[in-house]
């Protein structure tokens, strides 16, 4: 197996006329790690992926696999020779080929028998052996997805890029497919980039997270780090809800626990912990999936929002005790100085 | 009216915008002598503007109305068969005696034993039983490259079968009526066996597989693909009289002659002729029309654009035919062509003439 290098994008940029799609974006993808690229619609996620894949040429910056330059203003390794595996949201399997033929497609340099053997190895790894001779339109969504991943991994790419790979799947099968797929990718030991708009997916399943907005990578790092220490409001919002809290509305008891430097704090709902602390009146309660969202009155005009386990149902007017967890309260103004 | 015919009639109303549903020959039949216009329905396989002038002159002269339907001869034939006794046709005008014979053979014609016409048309240019009359002449002969051959080399049809003509002959397909009629006379004069040998030798001497029309054969001579083309005279004359300099050049570089069958036999003649249909009612008007075609005016307009030859002695010749050599017409009765038609096709097939 050839040694595997990081896939590195350095200050890459791409504009379409006046529209800047990607600007000065830098990101390193490391072997064996799945990096989630997350950002709202129109943030440049897909263009960034297309630049890495070689479907587009960057206007500025450089893309390298280890020391090998794949793209720079003076050089462009085209998609055909870049050896980067791609997995699309709609799988994009070749409809006229069986599962085996799909996986063998990229293995042209091998002898025929080796091709079959190599492809079968991947089918086995992704649990597709029994569907070897089936055609794409006979496959379930999950099977198509796994075929697409096997196809992308089979030629031993220098990296693999996945564009919203699981969003097309039925939620009931998504977890299982994701587990099989990502473990196969990690086992292959190649750098992987997974574009997603699902913060939860990024936080739970990626090894690293990169947040992109307006064409720039705002922050990248381990999920825990990015979640707990967002460098900007945009990053914080990208990974989950945050709410503003005016310093003047803070109960005195809480002011001490927070390092107050600016007039507005941002907190995640789970920063508000119920059970002890100051007493607040419940203004509203809303079941939101696995958690209940509570609106609590801080004073006559201000409310804060808490996420809690849906235990005893609370109704407006009930009283609860709450503390605030400082590590989930962000103070961006200070950091942006 | 049967139930089915009522449906058809109803449909024609449904589609609408069709006003002239009446059958012209029926209306004339009803009262041929009254002042109601007499109508003659002509089925013609010719489509020349000069014919239209001629028809207009006939209408002018007689006050009759001429309804003309133009189509290929074989289509007219089948149409008349389909129309049966409902056919509006009074006269069929068709090129080639063999073609007219088919109408007679199908029982679609009737005898018009007109002394006027019999006096005008030589006996061999009309059906013996009066079913059709020739109105103009058309000659099948050969165009040739005068640098390659002299007229003496080609003076008789059997000479085309000689070995020195190998690879020199261009001719159209054997299913063409002009070829069938020529073969009809060959059979008449030489007998089936010799005629078949002749056809076999022609096939062996062909420069290429039969293709295209007569004009194409003449052009092939000018282009050098062959040096002898079996064609009707008027195609050659038309090239010479063409507006196109290229066509004139083709005619100028070739010569024409009318081979005989043997010494003094005369040359193969064909006609454009008219037959009176079995359904014709106003025979007097039909006869009048045919007689009109045989007047000097009629002869002029029949031949001016087509470059056929007049049938009546003394009628003026159309422009361009003076380039043709003189000839003695064969005296074979043209009835023969039709009688020998099936045999001619059979012999062509046996000879491998496509």
């Amino acid at each position, binding site marked *: 197996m050839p040694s595997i290098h990081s896939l590195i994008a350095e200050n890459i940029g791409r504009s379409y006329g006046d529209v800047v799609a990607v600007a000065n974006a830098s990101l390193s993808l490391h072997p064996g790690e799945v990096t989630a690229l997350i950002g709202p619609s129109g943030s440049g996620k897909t263009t960034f992926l297309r630049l890495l894949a070689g479907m587009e040429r960057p206007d500025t910056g450089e893309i390298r696999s280890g020391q090998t330059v794949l793209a720079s203003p003076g050089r462009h390794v085209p998609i055909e020779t870049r050896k980067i*595996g791609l997995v699309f*949201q709609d799988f994009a399997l070749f409809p006229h080929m069986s599962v085996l033929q799909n996986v063998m497609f990229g293995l042209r340099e091998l002898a025929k028998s080796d091709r079959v053997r190599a492809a079968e190895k991947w089918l086995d790894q992704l649990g597709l052996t029994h569907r070897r001779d089936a055609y*794409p339109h006979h496959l379930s969504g999950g099977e198509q997805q796994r075929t697409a991943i096997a196809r992308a991994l089979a030629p031993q790419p220098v990296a693999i890029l996945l564009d919203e790979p699981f969003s097309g799947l039925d939620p009931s099968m998504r977890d299982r497919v994701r587990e099989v797929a990502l473990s196969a990718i990690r086992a292959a030991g190649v750098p992987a980039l997974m574009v997603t708009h699902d913060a939860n997916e990024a936080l739970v399943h990626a090894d690293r997270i990169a947040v992109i907005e307006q064409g720039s990578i705002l922050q990248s790092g381990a999920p825990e780090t990015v979640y707990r220490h967002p460098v900007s409001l945009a990053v914080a919002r990208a990974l989950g809800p945050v709410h503003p809290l005016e310093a003047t509305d803070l109960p005195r008891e809480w002011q001490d626990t927070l390092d107050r430097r600016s007039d507005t704090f941002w907190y995640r709902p789970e920063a508000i912990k119920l059970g002890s602390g100051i007493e607040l009146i419940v203004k509203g309660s809303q079941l939101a999936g696995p958690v209940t969202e509570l609106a609590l009155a801080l004073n006559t005009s201000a409310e804060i929002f808490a996420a809690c386990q849906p235990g005893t149902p609370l109704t407006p007017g009930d009283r609860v005790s709450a503390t605030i967890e400082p590590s989930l309260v962000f103070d961006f103004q200070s950091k942006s100085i | 009216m049967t139930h*089915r015919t009522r449906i058809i009639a109803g449909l024609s109303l449904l589609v609408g915008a069709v006003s002239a*549903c009446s059958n012209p020959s029926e209306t004339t039949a009803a009262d041929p002598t009254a002042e109601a216009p007499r109508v003659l329905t002509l089925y013609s396989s010719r489509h020349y503007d000069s014919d239209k002038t001629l028809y207009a002159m006939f209408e002018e002269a007689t006050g009759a109305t001429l309804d003309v339907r133009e189509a290929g001869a074989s289509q007219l034939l*089948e149409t008349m068969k389909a129309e049966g006794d409902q056919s509006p046709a009074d006269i069929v005008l068709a090129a080639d005696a063999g073609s007219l014979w088919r109408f007679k053979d199908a029982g679609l014609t009737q005898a018009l034993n007109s002394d006027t016409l019999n006096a005008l048309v030589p006996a061999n240019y009309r059906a013996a039983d009066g079913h059709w009359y020739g109105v103009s002449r058309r000659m099948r002969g050969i165009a040739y490259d005068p640098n390659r051959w002299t007229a003496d080399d080609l003076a008789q049809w059997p000479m085309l079968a000689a070995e020195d003509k190998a690879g020199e002959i261009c001719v159209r397909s054997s299913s063409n009526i002009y070829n069938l009629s020529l073969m009809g006379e060959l059979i008449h004069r030489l007998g089936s066996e010799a005629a078949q040998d002749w056809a076999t030798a022609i096939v062996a001497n062909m420069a*290429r597989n039969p293709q295209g029309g007569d004009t194409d054969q003449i*052009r092939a001579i000018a282009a050098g693909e062959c040096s002898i083309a079996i064609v009707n005279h008027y195609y050659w004359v038309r090239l010479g009289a063409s507006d196109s300099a290229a066509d004139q050049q083709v005619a100028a570089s070739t010569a024409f002659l009318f081979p005989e069958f043997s010494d003094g036999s005369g040359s193969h003649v064909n006609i454009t002729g008219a037959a009176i249909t079995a359904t014709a009612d106003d025979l007097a008007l039909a006869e009048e029309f045919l007689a009109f075609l045989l007047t000097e005016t009629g002869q002029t307009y029949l031949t001016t654009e087509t470059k056929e030859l007049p049938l009546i002695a003394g009628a003026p010749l159309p422009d361009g035919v003076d380039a043709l050599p003189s000839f003695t017409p064969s005296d074979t009765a043209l009835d023969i062509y039709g009688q020998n038609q099936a045999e001619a096709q059979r012999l062509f097939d046996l000879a491998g003439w496509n």
Partner: protein
Amino acid sequence: MPRWMPSVSAIPPAVMIGLVGLPVFAAIYAGLVAGDGATWAHILENRLTPYTLTTLATLILAAIMMLGLAVPAAWMISQHDFPGRAFFSWALILPLAMPGYVMAYAWADLMGVAGPLQSQIRAVTGLTAREYWFPNLFTVPGLAFVLASTLFPYVYITARAAFSMQSLATLDAARSLGARPLDLFWRVALPVAMPAILGGLCLALMEAAADYGAADFLGIQTLGVGIVRSWTSFGEPNTAARLALMLIALAAILLVTARLYQGQKGLHQTSTQWRTPGRTQLPRPIAVAATLLCAMILIICFVAPVLRLLWLASQSATRTVDLAPLIKSTLALGVLGTSGAFIAALIFTLAAKRTQTMKLATRLIAAAGYAAPGAVLGLGALFILRETGQALTGGIAITLLIWIYISRFTSAGVEPMQAALDRLPRNLDNAARSLGSKGVRQFFAVDFPLIAPGAFAAGLILFVEILKELPATLMLRPFGWDTLAVKAHAYATDERLAQATLPSLLIVFAGLAPVLLLSWRLSQTERA
């Protein structure tokens, strides 16, 4: 109302189905049943086999030529940018405006031994006509060439659409797996587009099988020629009817094949991201080659023949053809036929929405008429005429002819209307009904406005199809109703090509309008 009682609204479609289907069934009936004289064995031995083999050989050669002309051009135009791409994109559809027989006249003149091409060869090489080989148009390959050069746009249109609509992601995936441009074409794009291409090919071959004019002019004994000849020259309506059976069977096979392929919808594309792939810029030499390829196709299949006809027409300036009566009867028949076929197509389209049975029946009948060449339908009409004891005169002849036009072309009208309906959300109809709209109100308030654009195209296509129609018009037209097509054919068979050019050119130019409209509509749908 009891369940089994047919509703009033089923009557017009039922009548139309009968009307459209009857001529085909009359021809089939005549072929199968109404035999006298010649036995099957005789016909089989002497006529059927040679005619059928010639037809098959023509179709196979034409298929190869059409694929060769259409597919590379469609691929280049849908995937790559090169000088003139936008122009060729629509211009390559223009040959559809040329009827096969007109193409045959033009190319016979161009390729003849005295024509400009061979004259040039002799002038340049100094050879004589017997010293070099030159392709002969009056052969089966020649006929195949003529038909392919007018009909290849059917294949081009479907191929271009199939290539353009190919999932971008699928092509990108293939490239990321190392596929070079040629690999992309052979291993991915072509196999995926093949069903659509074959569907288009089958339709084009159906049209080729229906040809009469070109084959007759070139003297090639195809089934289409055989039918008309057996009827006219040999006086054997039974042979004609049996040849017609053969042709119907052939057309039916092609039609069913086309439908099967089209039903596959591009082999179940898994990809949902349909969008026009960004076209890639070709390297300069290849771009120039692509331009030359397209230019060559356009010149061979349209520019050269049209210019030659114009030149021929100019040569015969003094021998004018009186076009006015021809145009008058062509327009009259065209308008009558178009109206009839249009109404039939409208009724069919709307009826197909009602019940599944209706849909099947209308499709089947329209297809039967469409598949049956004009010569077959003309034969059916004459058979009906004979059985009813009517003469082919005046109003009856026109009625029959219009009837045949309806029978033959209703399908050509149904297609665009159906396409317009298919593009609409399926629930629209249900929504309208849920709002209480039905019957006549439903038709004028909802149905018609929705299919109006398709209907307009249908009308135009119908008109041009009728304008070009030759064999049935030739067989059935009454007094003084010579159309441009009939006259062009008459002049051409009379060896007066110069006079045939004017009516021929008029047909071509009239055909350009709908072809351009079609081209524009295609570019709209492909962009959408």
